[in-house]
């Protein structure tokens, strides 16, 4: 039987998009679906326009809550992964290169030059490091399905992610 960490890995591997929740400088919640990739240490990366609201939000408040799930499966048949952590714009060349390898490598695409994510160019690379991760399960309250969250062991999840 697969552990929750391996179930989470399967969802993370199978989905191209995640949804991130950030907070605007005025304190309002903000939701954004993004294409993501991740490295073997389970840092997640995305590329966004630096002027997008979520990029402004991350600059102001690095706390990010994300979810990776299948929005099309019937209730009680799918799993979702929830991730809480911090994100920041990458300014370091080595880290940018690492992120680009992950993003373009995940989709087998030719990597764009590093310079296109710096200076006058509009897009930036962002790195999200989860501190806590949950998977949803299903509970039953008076015959009504409800979601419950089960926290995962980060080290076991990272180990599962490393295994090909």
């Amino acid at each position: 039987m697969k552990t929750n960490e391996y179930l989470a890995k399967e969802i993370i591997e199978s989905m191209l998009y995640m949804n991130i929740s950030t907070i605007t400088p005025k304190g309002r919640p903000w939701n954004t679906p993004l294409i993501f990739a991740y490295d073997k240490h389970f840092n997640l990366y995305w590329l966004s326009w630096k002027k997008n609201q979520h990029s402004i939000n991350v600059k102001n408040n690095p706390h990010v809550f994300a979810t990776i799930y299948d929005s099309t499966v019937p209730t009680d048949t799918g799993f979702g992964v929830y991730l809480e952590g911090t994100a920041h714009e990458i300014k370091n060349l080595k880290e940018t290169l690492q992120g680009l390898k992950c993003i373009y490598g995940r989709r087998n695409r030719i990597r764009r030059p590093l310079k296109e994510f710096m200076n006058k160019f509009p897009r930036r690379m962002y790195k999200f490091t989860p501190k806590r991760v949950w998977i949803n399960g299903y509970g039953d309250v008076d015959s009504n399905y409800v979601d419950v969250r089960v926290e995962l062991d980060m080290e076991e999840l990272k180990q599962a992610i490393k295994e090909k």
Partner: protein
Amino acid sequence: MIALSLDNLHTVQKILDENLYMTISVSNSNGNPWIANLFYVYDKNYTFYWYSPKNSRHSHIIRTNPDVALAIFDSTATGDDVDAVYIQANAYEVSSKSELLKGLTLYGKKLLGTHFIRSYKAIEMFIKRYQDFKGGSPLRMYKAVPKKVWKLAPSKAYHEKFVDSRIEVPLHKPLMV
């Protein structure tokens, strides 16, 4: 009554109809985000309904801060631009019998349409048990009333690179859908 601008209505409607879940973002008392994926239904005024345990974190947060952000999109998309609907809304607990029945009827229709519940009789039972969302029950029904709606704008290109942005789909009052 609220209705969406007809220009983008078709796309918005398609996204709302084709997806089962929405992602709700809330802001806790420390000003940090919390997120939940929820099975949703909506009415002709684009008021969204869902039910959750009243003790779940997002339900707690909504009680003190009704400001929510919703996102609805096909998370299984494989292309570069997933079309999405984004909604800024205020969320409330539903307590009146009439609104509970309304929400549960919408739920029943969607559950039937997605074959999660297969018989009208089971739907009737589900709706009749509206007391499951009141009083001592651990469950509550919630609604989100939109203030602003956006969809993904056509991508702009900067040196052949995509730059995503949102386009607001204006809300009008009153209008018909």
